[in-house]
């Protein structure tokens, strides 16, 4: 019995599938026995478009011409294998093939040389043809017909249906990633209703997203040395939402490959195009950005191959694919699609954040309307103000000094700095007093010398005829947040008045004196720029004085307008705005406006990494790379898809690629996806190569079922929920997973499916189950990633000050899916339970059983907390035996028997209830779906 070959639906590795051929003349099969020999030994030279010596062994007709059925001695194929002469013998320049191998070829030829399978065309590159389900007894649906037919061949039958509670647990974990609640266990819900309920739950999208995030190599950091944080959770939430609304898989694909290219793409569709932005980015100082981008492009082609095509396209980066009919050139054709996309970060507000931001904007608009509302009294007062702001006399300095050596030039009354631009400076202005009485001094700041045009006036100090003059108060037409004008006379040199944003406009500040100066002759005014901000020195300014008892002031551009007799409407408007911006009566409204603006500025809008097609209107192309090396540029390759799939592409851009992937005639996409869903429900995920449908992956052991399901998915308009329902409704799915020694012996990996699946839970589901049992789980859908407790010292990246800050409140108990994923230091318990680091596309998680897992479940504070919470829940039940029943049901979804209760009772008596609850969380059954 070649049991190993008949992997039911999943694909086994070549290692398992290719047992050494057992010579049995009657049974030598070309596809099973001979083809692998040809592939391993001959195809490297004798296949593809340009075979050595024009001898092609991967073509049915050419191969047939090399053999004479029944007569090995006359067959060229055989003769070259046994030739004595090394110049004649094949494989050339290599030792002769082992006698046993040659014997297989001989027996095949002598047995008639039947070619029972496509030679040039591997099965997976042919469009699936819908087979008719076999007629058998005991089937609930067509899936069972295929399974039962296979079991009959093996002399087996389906196992009996699992108990109701086991099935409920299996369904809940499979479809929602969480165990059932006590209420759900108690409710006698109809099976189909349960299925519908679970598929409709928002938890379904979270559960399915887990699978997709591994494929998409989703993480919250960039990877490599600095491994800095990136914001990508909007894409993750898009995935959850897409699963929840059962976005058909074809559309799901199109939006993720090319959502940005869809006509009138919505924001969500553009966010979806972030699928391929989940690649890593190295931000080390010495990285060549072009090379780093190149590596991301290479990753995108490989990942597209694994996720949609079940193909190892990545193998063709450096050379033509060794086993599958992909040319190196075709790898670059695929890469060209992605090479034509720019990488972009966009604002990606959620509906909620967008709404909140709009409300803030509306508030602000309302306040601004208030500020500028028609008001007769104010309009009258404005006329007086327009006169008042002109009541200043400019000082005409006699001498101006720069301590740090800047050149200060004076034209009319305005001073301009040039030449040396020192980090810090202090100007001293010596000027005749200009007025008999002086109540205030005004500074017109007309520009700063910082590269951005800003300045920080640290201090203004005034002396009149050698005596210090005290400042009572100051006003400015505008002050930067955190840099109020009062800071210019607060005795602190490091704080001061600044004017950003916006920059490039004139501003004015007036400093009112404590007591008016009478009959002063000379004023000495020091402007100090000693703040920590280098070069934040005023570059142009003018000083003025007034005798007004209620001085008003405005910046230069406003005073210029106030002087005009004829004003345009625009000028009139600006004057009014300046007045309303200065008049004390409106100070309260202005304060509210400032607060609203601040709130808006601080409003965090989530971002997302997306694609944007280059707008040069050209066909996507890229450069071939000799042997795959980034620096070894070859000629230009146009975008295109590998010919081997036999499916022409309509169009040349990424959108065309996306549509090609999900074309109903595409031979692979549907097969790959149904196989993945099947694996999700049944798979032990070990040894099976669901990433490789190529010639090196093993033949599907029940190709009819695979093809039937693939065509069914398309018939059901790519509805994943619908297909999942079909599978879980089958008798095959509902079998008990209990296994006899005999059956285990015959089929250790359950490939024949004569029993139900028994599989350890994934890392995330283990933590989620424990939180659920403890009643701690917070079911909140989506949002930024969270930081549940983890020990100190896990994060320790060079050149990154980022630290793990434990989330407070509910975020500590969110579903594991939302845990912040740092690539170089992923959440420890997930890694221990075989989660990948998400640095690359992971098609399948391998599962191991290790003592580190035991230590985690016993001692990780997350599990200790969950155990204590579970104990507290149990303690609410008075009867001790019933208490254990509750705990057992919360963890394993079943009732314990008396012996099990006794074991736990004994422990609780000796070590307390926290210990007993801890035991429950550690049970194999608790971390297993069975």
């Amino acid at each position, binding site marked *: 019995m070649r049991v190993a070959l008949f992997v039911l639906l999943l694909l086994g590795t070549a290692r398992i599938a290719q047992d050494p051929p057992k010579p049995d003349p009657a049974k030598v099969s070309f596809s099973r026995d001979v083809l692998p020999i040809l592939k391993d030994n001959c195809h490297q030279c004798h296949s593809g478009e340009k075979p050595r010596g024009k001898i092609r062994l991967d073509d049915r007709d050419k191969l047939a011409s090399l053999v004479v059925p029944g007569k090995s001695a006359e067959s060229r194929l055989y003769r070259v294998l046994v030739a004595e002469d090394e110049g004649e013998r094949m494989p050339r320049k290599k030792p002769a093939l082992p006698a046993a191998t040659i014997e297989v070829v001989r027996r095949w030829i002598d047995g008639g040389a039947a070619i029972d399978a496509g030679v040039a065309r591997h099965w997976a590159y042919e469009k699936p043809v819908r087979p008719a389900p076999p007629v058998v007894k005991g089937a609930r649906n067509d899936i069972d017909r295929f399974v039962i037919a296979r079991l009959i061949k093996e002399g087996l039958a389906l196992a009996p249906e699992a108990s109701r509670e086991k099935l409920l647990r299996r369904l809940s974990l499979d479809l929602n990633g969480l165990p059932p609640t006590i209420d759900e266990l108690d409710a006698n819900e109809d099976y189909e209703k349960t299925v519908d309920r679970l598929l409709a739950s928002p938890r379904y999208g979270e559960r399915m997203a887990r699978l997709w995030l591994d494929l998409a190599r989703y993480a919250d950091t960039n990877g490599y040395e600095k491994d800095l944080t990136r914001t990508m959770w909007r894409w993750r939430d898009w995935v959850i939402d897409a699963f929840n609304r059962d976005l058909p898989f074809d559309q799901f694909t199109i939006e993720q490959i090319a959502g940005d290219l869809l006509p009138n793409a919505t924001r969500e569709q553009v966010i979806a195009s972030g699928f391929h932005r989940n690649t890593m980015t190295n931000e080390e100082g010495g990285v060549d950005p072009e090379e780093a981008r190149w590596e991301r492009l290479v990753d995108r082609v490989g990942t597209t191959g694994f996720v949609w095509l079940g193909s190892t396209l990545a193998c063709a980066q450096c050379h033509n694919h060794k086993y599958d009919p992909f040319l190196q050139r075709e790898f670059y054709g695929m890469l060209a699609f992605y090479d034509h996309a720019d990488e972009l970060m966009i604002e990606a507000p959620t509906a909620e954040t967008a709404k909140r931001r709009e409300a803030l904007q509306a508030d602000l608009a309302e306040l601004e309307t208030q500020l500028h509302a028609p008001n007769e009294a104010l309009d009258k007062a404005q006329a007086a103000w327009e006169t008042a702001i002109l009541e200043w006399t400019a000082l005409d300095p006699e001498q101006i000094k720069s301590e740090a050596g800047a050149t200060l030039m004076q034209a009319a009354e305005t001073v301009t700095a040039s030449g040396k631009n020192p980090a810090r400076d202090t100007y001293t202005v010596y000027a005749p007093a200009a007025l008999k009485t002086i109540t205030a001094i005004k500074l017109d700041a007309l520009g700063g010398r910082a590269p951005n045009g800003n300045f920080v006036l640290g201090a203004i100090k005034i002396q009149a005829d050698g005596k210090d003059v005290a400042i009572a108060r100051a006003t400015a037409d505008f002050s930067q947040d955190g840099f109020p004008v009062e800071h210019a006379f607060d005795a602190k040199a490091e704080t001061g008045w600044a004017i950003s944003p916006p920059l490039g406009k004139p501003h004015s500040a007036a400093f009112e004196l404590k007591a008016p100066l009478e009959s002063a002759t000379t004023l000495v005014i020091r402007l100090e720029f000693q703040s920590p901000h280098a070069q934040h020195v005023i570059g142009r300014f003018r000083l003025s004085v007034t005798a007004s008892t209620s001085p008003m002031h405005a910046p230069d551009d406003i005073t210029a307008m106030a002087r005009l007799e004829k004003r345009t409407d625009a000028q009139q408007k600006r004057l009014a705005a300046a007045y309303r911006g200065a008049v004390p009566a409106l100070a309260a409204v202005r304060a509210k406006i400032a607060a609203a603006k601040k709130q808006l500025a601080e409003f965090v809008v989530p971002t997302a990494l997306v694609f944007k097609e280059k707008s040069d209107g050209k066909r996507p192309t890229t450069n071939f790379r000799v042997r795959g090396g980034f620096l070894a540029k070859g000629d230009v390759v146009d975008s295109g898809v590998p010919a081997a799939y036999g499916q022409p592409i309509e169009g040349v851009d990424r959108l065309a690629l996306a549509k090609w992937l999900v074309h109903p005639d595409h031979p692979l996409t549907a097969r790959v996806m149904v196989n993945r869903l099947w694996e999700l429900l049944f798979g032990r995920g070990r040894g099976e190569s669901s990433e490789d449908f190529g010639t*090196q992956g093993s033949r599907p052991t029940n190709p009819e079922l695979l093809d039937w399901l693939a065509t069914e998915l398309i018939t059901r308009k790519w509805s994943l929920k619908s297909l999942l329902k079909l599978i879980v409704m089958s008798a095959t799915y509902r079998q008990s997973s209990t296994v006899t020694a005999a059956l285990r012996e015959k089929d250790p990996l359950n490939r024949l499916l004569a029993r139900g699946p028994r599989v350890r839970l994934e890392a995330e589901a283990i933590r989620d189950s424990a939180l659920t049992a403890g009643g701690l789980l917070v079911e909140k859908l989506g949002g930024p990633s969270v930081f549940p407790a983890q020990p100190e010292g896990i994060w320790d990246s060079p050149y990154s000050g980022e630290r793990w800050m434990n989330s407070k409140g509910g975020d500590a108990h969110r579903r594991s899916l939302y845990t912040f994923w740092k690539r170089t230091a992923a959440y420890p318990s997930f890694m221990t339970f*075989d989660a990948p680091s998400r640095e690359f596309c992971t098609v399948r998680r391998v599962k191991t*059983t290790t003592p*580190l897992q035991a230590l985690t479940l016993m001692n990780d504070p997350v599990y200790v907390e969950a155990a204590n919470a579970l104990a507290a829940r149990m303690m609410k039940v008075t009867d001790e035996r019933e208490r254990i029943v509750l705990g057992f049901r919360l963890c394993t979804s079943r009732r314990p028997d008396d012996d099990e209760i006794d074991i736990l009772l004994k422990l609780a008596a000796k070590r307390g209830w926290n210990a007993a609850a801890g*035991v429950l969380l550690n049970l194999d059954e608790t971390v297993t779906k069975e």
Partner: protein
Amino acid sequence: MKQLTRRHFFAQSACGIGTIALGSLLNESLFALQDRPKAKRIIYLFMAGAPSQIDLFDPKPKLRELDRKPCPESLFKNERFAFIKGVPKLLGSPYDFARHGHAEVSRLLPHTAKIADDLTIIRSMTTTQFNHAPAQIFMNSGHHLIGRPSMGSWMSYGLGSENRDLPGFIVLVSGENAPDAGKSLWSNGFLPGEHQGVEFRSKGDPVLYLSNPKGVDPTARRDTIDAINALNRRHLEQVGDPEIETRIASYELAYRMQTSVPELMDIAKEPKSVHELYGTEPGKASFANNCLLARRLVEKGVRFVQLYHRGWDNHGTNAGDDIVNRLPKLCAETDRAAAALVTDLKQRGLLDDTIVIWGGEFGRTPMNEERDGSKFLGRDHHPRAFTMWLAGGGLRHGVTIGATDELGYNVIADPVDVNDLHATILHLMGVDHTKLTYKFQGRDFRLTDVSGKIVTKILA
């Protein structure tokens, strides 16, 4: 053979078809993989950040002669550097070298100089990567992109651990930070998770979650494990899944680790002479302590111990990363302990079948980097030539192979690339590097990827 080579950390129990047996099923060929091994275990002292070969092992008189002269254009034209811009100036080493038998060693490494007769020095290492994370990943996994299993994982996968209470691949970290590529460096890649490097930490629990929570003493832990396993055993009888047996065994192992690991990590009881040899101080997080721990771990049969000491990235942008102030400090932190490790292993007869490897991820330029006009002396990343040393089982001791040109820029004799080094190390462990494979994503992967030549010149 089977028992010797396939002992596993996780499956000493006689499970039928548990995880391990299944792994074996997939890798039946591995049982017969090991052939006449010269060494059984490896201690890899990874000097993360990349030490300067020109200031430590590869003296260049000509370079000193041309100190601060403009670099010949032929050397930097069309080259890609991490940071050097414009026409760089050559930088002779400020340090004198002395000959010790075959070796020429800088005065910065007096202890290493003393054990020169036990060393095999390769002055002709080359790599393809000139940024830290990719170069460290390459040096560990044979490929510059993250995702392949590291050398230690391959060893654990191929050869298992000889100690039932400890993992086969253990990592110890010291220095200013974790290494640049973080935990990716000891990733199992696509190999099963049990082959992941386990970090033994110098702060907190040596192994994550090793300590019981407050209020749970070892006898209480024993009672809970007994209850867990009693219930698991009952369930095993009912459902018949042998995976449960593996889980039962894993709890027993966890319990043993709770005792064995703290004992192992406690170096206080080592005699004074040992502390003097290594320069160790119990309770301190240091490279010296890690060297001593490494010896204790291999003594217990751990297959692969990897130490990381980060800080060798001596660009010369300030006094904290230059070759005048910082490099001597790094040498002082590591020289004595590294030499002590070799000496100690030799005294205990362990050096005969243990390999010690010392080196960084690439070399450093013969030119002064002078980033942004910095006045501090330092060197940029240099993939074309660097030095590593090895010691121990199966190696030709007391030889230096390879040479660089008179400025130390290019290798001119016996080039050894990263894959060659890996092939040679596997060979010393009795493993054919082309046969240690794992099928993933449709192809057979190996540590040496698609290349690797055994460096016969360094074999005994």
